[in-house]
Structure formats: structure tokens, C-alpha cells
């Protein structure tokens, strides 16, 4: 449990270390770290912030808007210099973000945007729609523009689930021979994706492709297809570019995944926060989208943990 000591050490490092002068607190709030994507995000932001001489507090809201609101309250009452937030819902997060801004604390959103502008100082969002289209495009090509496919959707109450699903549809709908035989939510969960995929396979084994809203679900599907012994006949595409998925791509179990440069977004958010704290402006547009990159067997070696090496 290395993460246990990190906060303590970091606090002491930055207060103890003379850099504390520049310091002040940057609160980093993300969804649950049991998803490697958010952990990578948080770690990157934390590292950057401490390298710039800030104290950090890392917390996760587990996609509970109320808990997020509480964490922001905490940051406010601790007079944080800035909040780096991967939010818990495009609508549910508007209130809390406004609260922080009015409390004089600049908020820098990463990964997910909110349905309001002019409140957060920056919304550095990996372009889910673009990434989804990228993934779908390569999915279609791998399937030679025809065949039956299954879509595994993320938690229905999560914006990215619908954005990505729409991105997939935008592309695939252009190919009349691509037939969607099932669309099930697996709540971002691997075991659930596994179970549902198995059940779907019972309806028909005549399936050539599976496209999933994130890599965890894609890997669940892979396991199910492997168990059914038809993995080699099925094209599996995921989203996120998690290390596990990249490994699966290398192993040829998955065809591709759209990598969100989590680290990049997080670090640049911290840089802009630093800018804003020092100069009062970020010098950038509020809405900044970072394009996702497609990871396939050919370029898989070029990628590390949610970032190019």
C-alpha cells in the first residue's frame, strides 16, 4: 500500500522543503482510484504540482456528486490555491464548481467537461467524441465494414458513456452492413461485461465484433470470447488505453483502443493552475480538448501509462 505514505511524505516534503514558499495547496479530486486511468491522472497531477512546489491533497469522489461537493467544500475551507477536478457528472458538478469559484478558488477540469462555461478556469478534456470515432473507424476497417457486432455501454448515468456511444454510432451508422445485434450496459465493470457477453453469445455466436465504452469492459468481453473459443474470429475494440488493454493489443487479443492522454491533461492542468496563481490568467481558452490516440499492434510499443513514452 505505497499510496498510504505518499500524502504524508508529500506534505512534509513540500512544507519541510524550502520550496514551500511558492507553495500553497492544490486539491486533486478524481473518481475512484480503483480504475487505473484516474489513478494515473491523479499521480501525474500530484507529481507535477509537487515539482512546482505545491502541497497536494489527493481524494476520490467515487462518482458520488454529493461526496464531490463535500470534497470541494473541504478544499475551500482549507483555502486551497486551486482545484484540479475530474468531475462526477456534467450537470451535478456545475453547482460545486461554481461554489469553489465564488469561494475564490480556481477550478481546472480534466478528463470530463461540465455543461456550463465561464465558471471553471479551464476544461481540459480528452476529446471523447473524437476518440470514439477514431476507435470506431479502426473497428469498422478491421471488420471490413460488415458483420454483426455488440456494443458494451458504460454506466448509463455517466456522461462519457453516452458521448462515446454516440461517437461510435456516428461512424458505424455510415456502414449499412454493420449490424448491431446487442447493446448492453456493463457499468464499466469487467465481471459484469464477462457475464453479459457470455449471455449475449448464447443469443447468437454469429458475432464478428465487440466495441466497448472502456477497456475494462473490453477485457471482460475478451475473457468471455476466449472462453467461447471464438476470440480469434472477433474484433474487440476498447477505450482509455489502459496498460492492460495495451498489453492485450500487443498480444493480439484486442484490435485497438483509443488512448486518452490522462497524464498529459493532468500535467497541463497543473501548469495552467500554476500560471493562473502567479499571473491571474491561464493564457489559454477555457475549453481545450486533447485528442485521443489510437493504439494498435503497430504502435503499441510507443505508449506507456496513459501517455506516449
Amino acid at each position, binding site marked *: 500500500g505505497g499510496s498510504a505514505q505518499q500524502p504524508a511524505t508529500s506534505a512534509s516534503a513540500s512544507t519541510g522543503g524550502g520550496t514551500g514558499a511558492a507553495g500553497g495547496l492544490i486539491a486533486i479530486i478524481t473518481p475512484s482510484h480503483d480504475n487505473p486511468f484516474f489513478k494515473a491522472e491523479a499521480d501525474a497531477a500530484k507529481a507535477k504540482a509537487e515539482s512546482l512546489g505545491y502541497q497536494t491533497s489527493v481524494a476520490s469522489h*467515487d462518482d458520488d456528486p454529493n461526496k464531490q461537493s*463535500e470534497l470541494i467544500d*473541504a478544499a475551500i475551507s482549507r483555502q486551497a490555491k486551486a482545484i484540479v477536478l475530474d468531475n462526477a457528472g456534467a450537470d451535478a458538478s456545475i453547482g460545486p464548481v461554481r461554489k469553489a469559484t465564488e469561494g475564490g478558488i480556481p477550478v481546472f477540469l480534466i478528463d470530463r467537461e461540465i455543461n456550463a462555461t465561464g465558471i471553471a478556469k479551464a476544461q481540459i478534456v480528452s476529446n471523447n467524441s473524437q476518440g470514439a470515432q477514431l476507435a470506431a473507424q479502426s473497428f469498422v476497417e478491421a471488420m471490413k465494414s460488415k458483420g454483426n457486432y455488440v456494443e458494451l455501454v458504460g454506466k448509463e*448515468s455517466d456522461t462519457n458513456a453516452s458521448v462515446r456511444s454516440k461517437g461510435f454510432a456516428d461512424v458505424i451508422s455510415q456502414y449499412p452492413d454493420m449490424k448491431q445485434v446487442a447493446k448492453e450496459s456493463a457499468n464499466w465493470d469487467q465481471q459484469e461485461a464477462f457475464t453479459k457477453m457470455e449471455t449475449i453469445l448464447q443469443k447468437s455466436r454469429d458475432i464478428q465484433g465487440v466495441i466497448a465504452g472502456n477497456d475494462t469492459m473490453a477485457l471482460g468481453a475478451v475473457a468471455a470470447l476466449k472462453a467461447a473459443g471464438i476470440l480469434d474470429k472477433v474484433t474487440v475494440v476498447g477505450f482509455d488505453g489502459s496498460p492492460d488493454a495495451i498489453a492485450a493489443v500487443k498480444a493480439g487479443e484486442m484490435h485497438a483502443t483509443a488512448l486518452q492522454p490522462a497524464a498529459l491533461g493532468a500535467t497541463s492542468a497543473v501548469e495552467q493552475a500554476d500560471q493562473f496563481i502567479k499571473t491571474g490568467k491561464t493564457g489559454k481558452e477555457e475549453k481545450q480538448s486533447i485528442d485521443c490516440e489510437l493504439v494498435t499492434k503497430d504502435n503499441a510499443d510507443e505508449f506507456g501509462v496513459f501517455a506516449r513514452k
Partner: protein
Amino acid sequence: MTATTKTPAAVPAERSAARARRLSLLNVAFELRAFIALAVLIVIFGLLSDSFLTVPNLITMTKHVAINAVIALGMLLVILKGGIDLSVGSIVGLSGVVAGELLGGLHVGGVIAYPPVWVVIVLCVTVGMAVGAVNGLLVTRFNVAPFIATLGMLYVARGAAMLISDGATYPNLAGHSALGNTGFGLLGSGRPLGLPTSIWIMIALAVLATLLLAKSPFGRWLYATGGNERAADLSGVPIRRVKTIVYVISGACAAIAGLIIASELTSAAPQAGETYELNAIAAVVIGGAALSGGRGTVRGTLVGAFVIGFLADGLVILGVSTFWQILIKGAVIILAVMLDQGQQRFKRRGAAAAAVAATKHHD
């Protein structure tokens, strides 16, 4: 043989009086101890973080406690009766969704009607009470075990919330002055006399609950039903009504909590309140209530809610990793209850010791 005659064990009256005093002292000691547990928590966090003991932070944390406390007060009544209510978390979500739906306007025939905020609030609480009523009905009429009845309703209410909202979050519940349905936000963001509304609501409900339990006949009936249902029944306590009412109240409290959350976020998500039932139960039990019923106080429950809330926020402020937070929470729940058990046993041992002392007198 010789018929021996011994002095009867001393006259009972004043001895039992003495015991009564000793017990009440112990109870106070225990109440104190729960407070002390909280105090210790506060001191530790206060020392480790300079921002913890600031007035704004204490207010903020209390505001967070309020939500769990409101649910826990309803849960306390159910537990006093010897039941349990697993459906409160789902009711939180459902009530928020209903609020979102209503503030979005009711399609009556062709036109869209925008009910004023107070109507919305009343309706949401009514929905919560309705779910509670179903729980009560299942428990009293169909004698389904409370755990199962409310477990079922946990799914039903959550499913309903999802279906009504189609899984989507209701954005912007601020309302429009044009439609005369503004003001919903005040529930969460209002600060009468400098304290957030939710804290006032918690205080109000706590006072009501105290009056209900300590002063009203219903309170007596509830404790009696939890303490010895048969005796209560024979004495003419309407136990079925008592049981049903506690579930209805619990539902109402959960609905109110749901409204507070929706109002603070000025948006309502159908998945809001997941696993809140566990926090509420934990608060009640840490507060010294017995799941078997008949034992528990409002004061204790509040302390329990504060212990859980301050613990959570404190760990965040200290930047303890989420993973440790989970583990520590579990440990604290167990320890707090073992503390209570310990106190119980201590009571008994004390009495036993007295007995031994008494023996010495005799021979």
C-alpha cells in the same frame, strides 16, 4: 436436622435504588465516552492539520454530517423498534429524481404546469413516506422480515428512480422566476443566521425526534415495542401502527436528505444515496443503540453521525489515501461497538463483584 434461618439478603428497596443510581452514572459515563471518542478524533485531526479546527471547516463538516444525521434519525426509530431499513439510500435518490421531474414541469394534458417549490418538497417527502409505508405494510401485514422487505424496496425504489429519470441527471434545479418555481436552491445554499439550511434542518429534526421519544406517548410505545413486544401488545400499545409509522418516518427523513443533496447540487442524479443506509445504521449503532431494539437515544445517534462524518472529512484533509479511509472506517465501526459491548459487560461485572462482596457478609 437443624432448621437454620439466615438474615434475608438486605432489604431490596434502597439497594435497587442504589443500583439504579450506579447504572445511570454508568450510562452518563458511556454517553460521555461516546463524546470523548468524538473529542479524541477532533483533537487528533486538530493537531495534525491546522485547517481542521477552523470555524468555516467545522461548519462545512457539520453540514456534511447533517445529511447522514437526518437519515440516521429516521433509522434510529426503526432500530428502536427492533427493525432495520435498507431502503433509505434508494429513497434519497428517488426523492431527488422526483424533485427534478416536478421542477422540470408536469405535463397535464397539453399544458405544462410548474408546481411551486413548497409543493415539490411536500410531494417528495410524501413519496418517501409512501415507500416507507410499503415497508411497514410488508413487515406488519405480510410479516416479511424487515431486512428482506427493505432490501427488496432498495431495488424497487432505485429502479423507479432510474426509470423516471431514464438514468439521466436533472440539471439546474434553480427554477425560473418566470415560472414562479425558484428558491429550491436555498435548501442547500441558504444560510439563515450564518448556518447552512441543512444544519438547521438537522437541528430541527433532532429536537422533534427528542420530543417524540422523550415526551410523547408514541415514544414510550416505541421503546416498549422494541423492549418487549408481547408486553407492549398486552398493555394495549398499537404495535402494528407503531411499527408502520417508524418506517414512514424513516422514509420521510431519507426523502428530506435527498432534497438537501439535490438542492446543494442544484441537480439530481438517480444514483444518489447509494450505500447511505450503511452509514446511517453505523451512526445509530455507534451511538449506542441495540439492533435488537429498545435501546438508543437521539443524542447518541447524533454523536455517531459526527464520528463518522468528521472521520471521513478529517482523513480527506490529512490526505489519507481513499483505500486507508475505507479500512479505517470499518475498524472504527467495530471498535466503537466493542466499546459499547465492553461497557455493557463492565456493568455486569460491577454487579457480579457486588454480589461477591455480599457473600462475604454472610459467611
